[in-house]
């Protein structure tokens, strides 16, 4: 598992993490989220190809499928927030606290 794969996937993962943590719009955060998941899938795939163990590919594929399902739900929620008249930003989701 060469260092190149790890440095790339780590960088991408941190990029996605930053996207989720720092952005205010929900959609931007969602993109960050998807980036993180796909980076993991990428890492799995590359590792599998390098080590020749087929399991990694199976895992990557399944991860993609599950991520897709998750994405659907995420988008639905963001749309519901928009349709309820609030801007799709973290600031509008402040009522529950304490």
């Amino acid at each position, binding site marked *: 598992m060469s260092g190149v794969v790890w440095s790339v996937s780590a960088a991408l993962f941190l990029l996605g*993490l930053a996207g*989720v*943590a*720092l952005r*205010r719009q929900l959609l931007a*955060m969602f993109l960050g989220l998807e980036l993180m998941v796909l980076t993991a899938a990428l890492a799995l795939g590359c590792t599998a190809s390098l080590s020749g163990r087929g399991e990694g590919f199976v895992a990557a594929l399944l991860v993609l499928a599950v991520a897709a399902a998750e994405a659907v739900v995420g988008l639905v929620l963001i749309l519901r927030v928009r349709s309820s008249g609030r801007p799709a930003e*973290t600031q509008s*989701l*402040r*009522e*529950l*606290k*304490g």
Partner: protein
Amino acid sequence: MSSLPPAALLLFLAPLAALAAAFFIMRPWKPQWTHVPILISCGVVTAAAAYLAAMVYTGRGADVTLYTWMFAGKWSVPFGVRIDGIGVSVLCMVALVGALIQLYSVGYMKGDPGFSRFIMLLHLFYLSMIGLLVSNNYVQFYLFWELVGACSYFLIGFWSHKEAARKAAMQAFLTLRLADFGLMLAVLLIIVQFRDTHFALFHAVRFFPSMYHPLIGLLILWAAAGKSALFPLYFWLPDAMEGPTPVSALMHAATMVTAGIFLLVRSWPLISAVPGLPGLIAVVGAVTAIFAAVLAFTQTDLKRILAYSTVSHLGLMAFAVGLGQITAAVFHLVTHGFFKATLFLCAGNIAHASGKSAVSVSEVGGLWRRMPLTFAAFAIAAFSLAGIWPCAGFFSKDAILDAAFERGGWAWAAGLAIAAASAAYIFRMLFLTFFGPRPEQSPARSLHEAPPVMAVPVAFLALGALAVGWAREDLVAMLFCGRQSAVAAPSLPELAPKVAAAGLGLAALAAGVVFALTMGAPSWDWHWRRRRPGLAAAFAGDLGWRRVVAGFVARTLRVADVVGRVWDHETWDAAIEKTATACRALSRGGSAMASGGLSESLWWLMIGAAALLAWAGLR
């Protein structure tokens, strides 16, 4: 030990039966007749005491255990009866004087609303005093010792609506408790040391020296000092005069206060085994006697004069014990019981007649015409107290003076000083009360002779004060015979004429001087008080000793306040409650962290993941 004489049982059963009858039958049914069962019981007890005295006189004592009171493992404490020389001689005096005073109190307390309560309390005291005299071991002795203290609390504070009576009762009980601290600790140490507290075993105590010995001796002295009002702890007795006069007569003159001396006599084998302790007792006795006599000389209230006189005579008895003359001490205890009771009852007659509970010197004067019988009784008792020949006091005081003479040196001087001082204050009281009213005095119109039910007991007691002295040899015989007499002490010395003459001379001299002073031109008593008010105030405050006591009490209460309020409530308890408020503050902080923001929760999630990563990295 011979089997238990039935009379000894009667000593307990009669009063108990009378008290039960009075409390459960007479009080609800006919409160004004409660004294009937009580007086019957007094008669029975006096007869039983006489029978036991005769028995001991013929040489048959008894020391029997009724039942085992407390036990655990190998240790046990019996509840028993011990009839021996010392016990019985004092028992006779107490029984007789007690009976007469209770008869007197029926008349004295006739109109009082708490009449039945008073009679019952007095009889409960009577029972516990008798129990004290015939108990056969220290723990049982301690039981009656405390019971007597409790009765004195309720009797001094009988007129509980009077502020002074309440304070006096509290002071008396707490002082006695302070003294009982000594006795309880002494009893504990005796058990630790000797495993058994029977009086019978103590005459052999000299052969088992132990480190606790001096401590036990000192503690017993401390206890006796409290109960018999010796120097450090005497101040409660003059204040105890707030109680009704029969109480003062019975408890604070004849019986209760002598319990301390009785304890010293009972523990004499133990005390004599401690080098230097008898000397200390003699010194304490002498100091108390002289100090109290001087104070008695300066008092204005009749009963307080007699109270200080009692303190003085108790000091005298302790002085006798200190000198090793046990028999003289017991003999004086018996005679003192008679003449002091008479003096008190005469004072009671005066107070009863004048309708007031406390009579000051300026409210009497020239009473010999209006109250002849009281005057006669008072005179006999006064002569007896001063130690004038025909009366009983002469013989017992003379015995003590002989012992003091033999010891010589400071003891002899102290003995003479006490003899002179006691004659002085009693004659002052006699002249001021009964002889021509002084200009400053204004006797009440209503003063007249006491009714027969009060006059008869006074007369009997006066007779006793006169005759008891002559029974000197029989009393000595009784003290020594009776196989149980554990007293290994010298017998009564013969009447040395020289010593008797010195004593009598001093008494007569004092009488003359006092007569001159009181009956002289400027009636001396009021004269010096006007000229030197500061000195008068000093004497009233027992030369500063009362301030010392008040200081001690105040300091104790301050410590209690610091411990109880400042530390326990405001510091320690507050600190514990503050942990709760700290939790609530933390809780406010914690819930503030949940600011509701979505990004913040994600940051915390990443921080958590980072922490776990770091932790994994550590390994």
